[in-house]
């Protein structure tokens, strides 16, 4: 098996840089606090609607469920904000690879379903980013302040 080492190195370095940047930015903009507050409110409305249901107050049950729904919508928005910050730069990096550096890094001896003739630079980027996150970033999180949410 011949590996295109130069391409693998370039793509991996890009993946490492973007992953580190994304972790720092998302730690600064973390929505966890807001999400916890909203989940506490959702649970509160749920409990209250259950109480209302227990005493047969159908109107109040519906009112709580509706308010819980609204809080759930806010929760989804907070979650979306967090996710879009974590993914946008990766998608942009993948877009740059797709446009300017779409090369084969590990050619397969035979075509494999879904993967095709080889492992391309985009798949290599994803593998590098995931591996870097779990092998380097995650163990460093407790030690490096910039990798943790701003309130921790």
């Amino acid at each position: 098996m011949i590996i295109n080492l130069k391409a693998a190195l370039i793509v991996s370095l890009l993946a490492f840089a973007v992953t580190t940047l994304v972790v720092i930015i998302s730690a600064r903009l973390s929505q966890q606090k807001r999400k916890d507050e909203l989940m506490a409110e959702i649970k509160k409305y749920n409990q209250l609607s259950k109480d209302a249901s227990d005493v047969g107050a159908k109107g109040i049950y519906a009112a709580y469920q509706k308010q819980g729904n609204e809080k759930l919508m806010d929760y989804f928005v907070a979650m979306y904000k967090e996710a879009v910050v974590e993914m946008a730069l990766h998608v942009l990096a993948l877009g740059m690879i797709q446009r300017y550096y779409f090369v084969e890094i590990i050619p397969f001896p035979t075509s494999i379903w879904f993967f095709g003739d080889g492992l391309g630079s985009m798949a290599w980027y994803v593998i590098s980013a995931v591996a870097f996150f779990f092998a380097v970033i995650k163990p460093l999180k407790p030690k490096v302040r910039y990798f943790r949410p701003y309130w921790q």
Partner: protein
Amino acid sequence: MEFAYGLDANPFGILFWGIIVGYVFSTVGAAGAVLTFIGQTVLFKFDKAMIKHLITTGMAESEAKAAAKNTLKVHNLMAVIFSPLIAVPRYFKEKRVAIPLALCVAVGVVAGAVIGPMIPMSMKAYKFWFGVVTFLIGIRLFYETTDYARNKKQKLKNISKKFEEKVKELKKSGNWDELAAEGFKVNNFSISGLKFTFWGEEFSINPMAAALGGFFIAIIASMFGLGGGFLLVPYLSSIFVLPMFVVSGTSITIVLVNSVIAIISYLAKGAQPDLMFMGVMLVGIAIGSFVGPVTQKYYKEKYLRMFLAAILFFYGLRFMGVWAALGIPI
């Protein structure tokens, strides 16, 4: 700047539109996918550029149109899939997914998400139905700005507050049980009935009905390139009368399953997503979604909703071909 598939657009224009989408979505909480679609088709004419480009590479016109339509759907699904992708592993870790229920619905969703992309739909029909959805969201947003809807909301809050105070008093006297977070446990399972305990509460559902509902929701959502959360949440909370903390984790898991399968199906059908285009737009969405809440205090949200409703009415009618039928050249 030239993007993939012949699109020649200013990246700052795409970034700016992304900021608007993120801004509106984070303040109003709706219309994110619709505005992304409007940006792609009306402002940047991504579909037309792609069709033209694919035809010059020797592809038949019908095939090029199908590829462009499928690519638009994949772009929409890409914008949807990020939150489930990040949230689902966390939800599982925190035991917030009612797995027995999610599995029942997912059985139908898998089948629906495979069949949905197979249903033939021309670009014209796709835009028409997207126009209908856009128009309906516009009506909903406009309704929310009326005094009637606002008063109704306030009334609900007042009733709830009174009841909440009463419950607090009763709880102090020790008459109410607390909710226990202990994950899920299947108590009884058969084709016609599933009983499970989730967070200390027992739920009973019909697995066949859950799968069937998931099937139809997945067909509709995958046909339009949507995640399906807007249908799943009311389905689970209204039909099965499930509480919100069950619905949140479960629906987002199902949205992930639906979106992943639909994306794979559309890629297999020739969709070719332009990640550079989507990446620039997503960076804009990320910026806009954080700027939105900061500036919200400087104006009344009602006016933003009214403005957005007017835009959605306008584009809804445009996608449905109403302006063209009336001879108005817009």
